[in-house]
């Protein structure tokens, strides 16, 4: 098929033919076309179906405000639903299909909705029905409604493209590269300011590319081209076409989306789009304006489009939207379309101006009707005829409608700014409270006349430059065409019997808005919500003002008093892939790896995510069938001989200064002042509200030097809290903290043979016998011939145990050395699971117990709150409701019947008590199978637990149908006297 409606001229490259397909039909266009212009060139007018009534729809605009022409672009995983044909650059092998219809586009079975149901399914109908019988909503009504939901469909496959982000800093961000934006950029750029000029279009110039304006005796589009060439030569100017400034945020930060490969057949692995964060000192909004439609009977037929887009298609793309084009306008600008067509010798079927005034242009041989209106149109899949208020019928195949222009004030509203109504322009213009450091110029500011826009643009640029201490620009306002713009407050044709569309995509009609009023939904927000006007993918860019005006008429208020709906970001829809950028899949968040990670991988360890850390969970051996088998072995051989575990992930904080001990006294509940050098002490931290926060050991290396360890989960939070105490609560303390978590590899060496194993790697001048290096000792030593290290005699497992710290770079070497040296003791590496088993066997609280809801009393640690000193949380921990007689207590649990499987998360009820939350006594926090006791054991909180040793209670677990009786016991299952650690 040839391009039947392609005419001469335009800013397209006819040497580069592009093959593409629409609904499976192969077509051709040129480089520089949009999908919309190419479709029009190929004589295609029907391109989609509306949301609710499935009305046939055509291309209505030539920009990002398009409500109708949405397609599914590309194939397979690359499919992009709801893509505006009017902004898609044509590329070779582009593949698009229309959306939201059953069967072929030109015979949509769902169209019946329009023909038969429409009287019943107007605004808000579903709020009034589908209620009886109740059950039918879920089972019948809603599934039907949901089936009709949505327009395009996702591929249900992972987005194969990649995206990137970036940060840009500038003095002045200029939004929009039309005449106003370009001139401002020239002025600012030449004055040396760091400028970013962004425009959503691939071809900069704005309306200059669609009109036949003259600037400085040049055709507007040529002037734009020259300006851009000039700007590209300036190093301090960054030109960003295909870039939408989608949001304005606090303190001069703007969100920008740059489309890098959307105009290409394939991204070839490069980022498809880049989401920029632009930090600007000042911004100039020169985003132009959007032409509005007028509502009249059947004003939504294919072939009806805004008057300015008819000019765009003719002038910019060399496309003829219609062979007999009628024009319906309420303002002077509509006449420009008639002139453009007539000057090219194209047929203008008629010019209908709603105003009773003199014709604006003299267009020879054209039927001109002043003060008349269109009440109806015919032609289901393409307009055939228009019928005027006086009954006159005029044949046409294209209708250009101009309802006046609306400045693009969106970005001025993103920070709560409200536009103000201008009753001479009949449009909303930027209000008083603009985002800080933003100025507006050109038609975005209501300066619809080109000469005025240029004048304003230069003025504004100079103000901004002066504010930023740059010298004023020397350039002068270029001379340009200077035609007037008179508009009228005419919104819809009252005489129309037929439905007149306001929001094309969501099928909101004049009637719907009037009904909304009739039912009491009279504030704009109510009307929007009740009719869904302005909520489609175009966010009401073409419809909001109309709807507002109609509601104003109903309420008898002015449009200003009727109000406006605040525009919210983004200006145009942004792919979620772009907002996520690189943070996807495995790159969602960084990995932290332990020093023994590589070695553990070689051992075939199974890893587990602990925060951002990857830790070895267990080390399976050949022949072991279940993880339990592996973990049981790791526990038994550690308790029987010796095991090694990488505990590097625990937070390590270096604390130095003359006041370090006093500092620790404030952050810990227990006292550290008298802790001798060379000793370690277990410490408990509370939140100021008296809830247990974190625990760990702190060692005193020298008088003014401590090393604190925190739990893995709280390392960052504790450090933050310490800085708060240091800077905000005790600003004059001489204490300094720095994290050394990553600086030291730390290994727990546990079990009866741990000392003998360590003696083989520690340099022999260091005596670690029980006498010389007793429980809770610490000292700086050297290992493996003079490598500095730190040794702590502390135990989480309850065995004779040590933690050996060594500079991270030696961590890999050390684990291998320990395994080598430990062969004779059959040393075993153990993971977090065995670590957990052994701590439960010892009744040590961990994350499941220190869950931010438990007090020292709950945990049985109340004696750790030193009564002779202050500490964070001490006062509020004394509140009565947290110290009741029957408080929850951490105790141990055994199954009543040996071998019964305990599970964490079970709730405790007294035997025979009704299973209701009022009888809830507490919960099981941690469980494991203890290979030592050959039975399941658990830790949990239960009211009065310390008074109920030996009681049998019911562990309720409906979640896993595993309710059973358990016996309350001491949480210290293994070696309660603690002989082993001191051995």
């Amino acid at each position, binding site marked *: 098929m040839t391009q039947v409606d392609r005419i001469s001229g335009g800013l397209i490259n006819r040497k580069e033919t592009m093959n593409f397909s629409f609904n499976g039909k192969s077509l051709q266009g040129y480089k520089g076309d949009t999908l919309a212009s190419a479709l029009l060139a190929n004589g295609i007018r029907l391109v989609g179906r509306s949301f609710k009534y499935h009305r046939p729809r055509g291309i209505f605009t030539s920009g990002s405000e398009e409500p109708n022409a949405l397609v599914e672009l590309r194939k397979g995983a690359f499919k992009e639903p709801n893509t505006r044909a009017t902004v898609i650059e044509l590329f070779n092998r582009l593949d698009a299909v229309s959306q939201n219809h059953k069967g072929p586009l030109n015979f949509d079975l769902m169209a019946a909705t329009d023909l038969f149901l429409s009287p019943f399914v107007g605004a808000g109908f579903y709020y009034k029905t589908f209620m009886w019988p109740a059950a039918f909503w879920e089972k019948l009504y809603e599934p039907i409604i949901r089936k009709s939901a949505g327009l395009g469909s996702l591929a249900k496959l992972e987005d194969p493209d990649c995206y990137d982000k970036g940060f840009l800093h500038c003095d002045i961000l200029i939004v929009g590269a039309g005449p106003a934006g370009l001139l401002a950029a020239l002025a600012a750029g030449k004055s040396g300011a760091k400028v970013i000029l962004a425009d959503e279009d691939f071809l900069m110039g704005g309306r200059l590319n669609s009109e036949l304006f003259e600037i400085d005796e040049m055709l507007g589009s040529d002037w734009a081209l020259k300006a851009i060439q000039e700007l590209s030569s300036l190093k301090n100017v960054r030109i960003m076409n295909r870039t939408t400034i989608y949001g304005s945020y606090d303190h001069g930060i703007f969100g920008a989306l740059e489309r890098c490969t959307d105009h290409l057949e394939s991204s070839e692995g490069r980022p498809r789009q880049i989401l920029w964060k632009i930090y600007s000192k000042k911004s100039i909004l020169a985003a132009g304006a959007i032409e509005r439609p007028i509502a009249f009977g059947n004003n939504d037929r294919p072939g009806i489009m805004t008057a300015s887009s008819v000019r765009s298609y003719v002038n910019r793309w060399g496309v003829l939207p219609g062979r007999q084009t009628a024009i319906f306008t309420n303002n002077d600008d509509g006449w420009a379309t008639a002139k453009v067509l007539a000057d090219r010798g194209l047929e203008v079927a008629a010019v209908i101006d709603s105003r009773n005034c003199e014709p604006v242009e003299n267009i020879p041989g054209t039927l001109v009707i002043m003060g008349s209106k269109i009440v109806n149109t015919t032609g289901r899949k393409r307009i055939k005829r228009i019928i005027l208020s006086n009954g006159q019928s005029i044949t046409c195949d294209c209708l250009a409608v101009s309802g006046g222009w609306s400045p693009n004030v969106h970005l001025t509203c993103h920070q709560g700014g409200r536009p103000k109504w201008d009753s001479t322009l009949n449009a909303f213009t930027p209000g008083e409270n603009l985002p800080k450091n933003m100025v507006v110029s050109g038609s975005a500011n209501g300066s619809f006349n080109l000469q005025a826009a240029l004048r304003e643009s230069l003025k504004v640029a100079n103000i901004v430059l002066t504010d930023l201490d740059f010298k004023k620009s020397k350039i002068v306002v270029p001379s340009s065409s200077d035609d007037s713009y008179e508009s009228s407050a005419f919104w819809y044709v009252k005489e129309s019997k037929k439905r007149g569309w306001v929001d094309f995509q969501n099928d909101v009609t004049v009637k719907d808005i009037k009904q909304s009023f009739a039912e009491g939904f009279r504030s704009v927000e109510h009307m929007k919500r009740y009719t869904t006007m302005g909520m489609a993918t175009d966010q009401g860019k073409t419809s909001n003002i109309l709807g507002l005006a109609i509601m104003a008429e109903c309420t008898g208020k002015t449009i200003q008093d009727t109000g406006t709906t605040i525009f919210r970001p983004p200006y145009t829809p942004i792919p979620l892939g772009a907002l996520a950028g690189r943070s996807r899949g495995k790159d969602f968040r960084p990995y932290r790896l332990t020093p023994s990670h590589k070695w553990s991988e070689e051992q075939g360890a199974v890893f587990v995510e602990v925060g951002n850390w990857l830790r070895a969970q267990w080390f399976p051996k050949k022949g072991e069938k279940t993880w339990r088998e592996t973990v049981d072995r790791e526990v038994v051989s550690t308790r029987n001989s010796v095991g090694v575990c990488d505990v590097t992930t625990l937070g390590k904080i270096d604390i130095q200064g003359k006041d370090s001990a006093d500092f620790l006294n404030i952050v810990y509940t227990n006292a550290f002042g008298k802790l001798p050098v060379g000793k370690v002490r277990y410490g408990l931290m509370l939140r100021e509200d008296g809830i247990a926060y974190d625990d760990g050991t702190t060692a005193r290396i020298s008088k003014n030097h401590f090393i604190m360890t925190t739990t893995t989960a709280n390392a960052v939070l504790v450090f933050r809290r310490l800085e708060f105490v240091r800077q905000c609560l*005790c600003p004059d303390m001489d204490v300094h903290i720095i994290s050394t978590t990553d600086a030291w590899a730390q290994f727990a060496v546990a079990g009866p043979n741990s000392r003998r194993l360590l003696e083989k790697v520690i340099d022999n001048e260091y005596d670690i016998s029980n006498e010389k290096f007793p429980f809770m000792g610490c000292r700086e030593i050297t290992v493996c011939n003079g490598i500095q290290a730190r040794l702590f005699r502390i135990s989480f497992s309850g065995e004779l145990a040590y933690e050996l710290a060594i500079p991270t770079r030696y961590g890999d070497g050390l684990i291998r050395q320990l395994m080598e040296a430990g062969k004779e003791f059959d040393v075993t590496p153990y993971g977090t699971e065995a670590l957990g088993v052994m701590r439960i066997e010892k009744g040590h609280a961990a994350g499941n117990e220190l869950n931010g809801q438990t007090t020292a009393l709950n945990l049985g640690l109340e004696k750790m709150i030193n009564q002779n000193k202050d500490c964070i949380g001490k006062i509020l921990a004394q509140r009565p409701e947290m110290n009741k007689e029957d408080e929850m207590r951490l105790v141990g649990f055994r199954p009543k019947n040996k071998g019964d499987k305990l599970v964490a998360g079970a709730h405790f009820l007294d035997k025979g008590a009704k299973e209701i939350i009022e009888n809830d006594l507490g919960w099981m926090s941690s469980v494991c199978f203890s290979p030592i006791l050959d039975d399941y054991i658990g830790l949990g909180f239960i009211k009065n637990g310390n008074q109920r040793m030996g009681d049998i209670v019911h562990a309720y677990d409906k979640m896993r149908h595993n309710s059973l009786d358990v016996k309350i016991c001491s949480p210290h299952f293994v070696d309660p006297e603690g002989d082993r650690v001191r051995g």
Partner: protein
Amino acid sequence: MIIDHPILGPRDASEFVYLGDSSLINRPDPSVEEAAQLFYEYQYLRANIAGPMKELWYHEQGDRSWLVVTRNTITHEITSVELARDVARSMGRTK
């Protein structure tokens, strides 16, 4: 948002961690009789100002300093940024 750090200059707020009302610097004296009441008010009651509010931000991804930022909670405009340590001292806190 951008916080104009008194030493480092303007930095994106995402480098900071927010705590809340700067009155949290004013930790009561635990030794006085009405300590329970004072700590209750200190920890739980907030002016929750609609307008310029002094609040604590921590420059975790920067110089680790705690700042007192005066920010309008209606417009988000920031009018002053001080080092919390200086503020604490000016409130008479020492060791």
